[in-house]
């Protein structure tokens, strides 16, 4: 039987992997991917809680839908900024591929 704790453990692992990616990677696109993983961990949590704690309602699933949509908007803005930066940097130095330094 797969219980709530299994889902929570999976979400926790995913969250930590995402957090590591977001903090350790130097490439902006990879950082954004790490954040996506964290948000997916949140979605697993929400849907699992909904399924196991109060299966009669759909609040958790609706919450997850909103998280998905807002995350897409966030990533779109992030990538647009990355493109903007990339266009400019490309004109000055092509060699530097790892251009995001904190």
């Amino acid at each position, binding site marked *: *039987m*797969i219980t709530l704790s299994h889902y929570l453990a999976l979400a926790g692992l995913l969250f930590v992997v995402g957090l590591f990616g977001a903090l350790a990677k130097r490439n902006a696109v990879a950082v954004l991917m790490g954040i996506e993983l964290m948000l997916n961990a949140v979605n697993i949590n929400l849907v699992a809680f909904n399924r196991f704690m109060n299966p009669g309602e759909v609040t958790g699933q*609706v919450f997850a*839908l909103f998280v*998905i*949509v807002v995350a*897409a*908007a966030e*990533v*779109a803005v992030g*990538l*647009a900024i990355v*493109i903007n930066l*990339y*266009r400019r940097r490309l004109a000055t130095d092509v060699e530097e591929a790892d251009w995001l330094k904190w």
Partner: protein
Amino acid sequence: MANRIERKSRLGEDLLIFWGRCSKILYQYVVVAVFLLGAIGVAVAALAANWLVRPKRPVAGAKGETYECGLETQGPTWVRFKVSYFLYALIFLLFDVETVFLYPWAVKFQVMGWFAFAEMIVFIGILVLGLWYAWKEGALEWK
């Protein structure tokens, strides 16, 4: 001494219980494992039959070239995509994801009545404003 033995046996018991739980979970995956073996078996069998029956000629000439949609490939395949492509992808992504709200609405809107209908019209109106903006600012033109 007795204490230690008791503790040891308790550990053994715990391990047994733990294994019992694990095996219960694993048992549910037996079906998946059978399917997996079957799928691998079919694929391997098909390849093996092919290898046995086919005529064996050495690789030479055009036979060794990359085949892609009937055209000969030109230049290296690891090229960079044009930046404009990403813009399209971003706009597509946004409008694509927004449709996720339409599905639950479409299932339930007859129950929820006119208020839900009006709400969705407003939502789509805002999306149309966004599309109009993208169009007007030239995000849909290939430069």
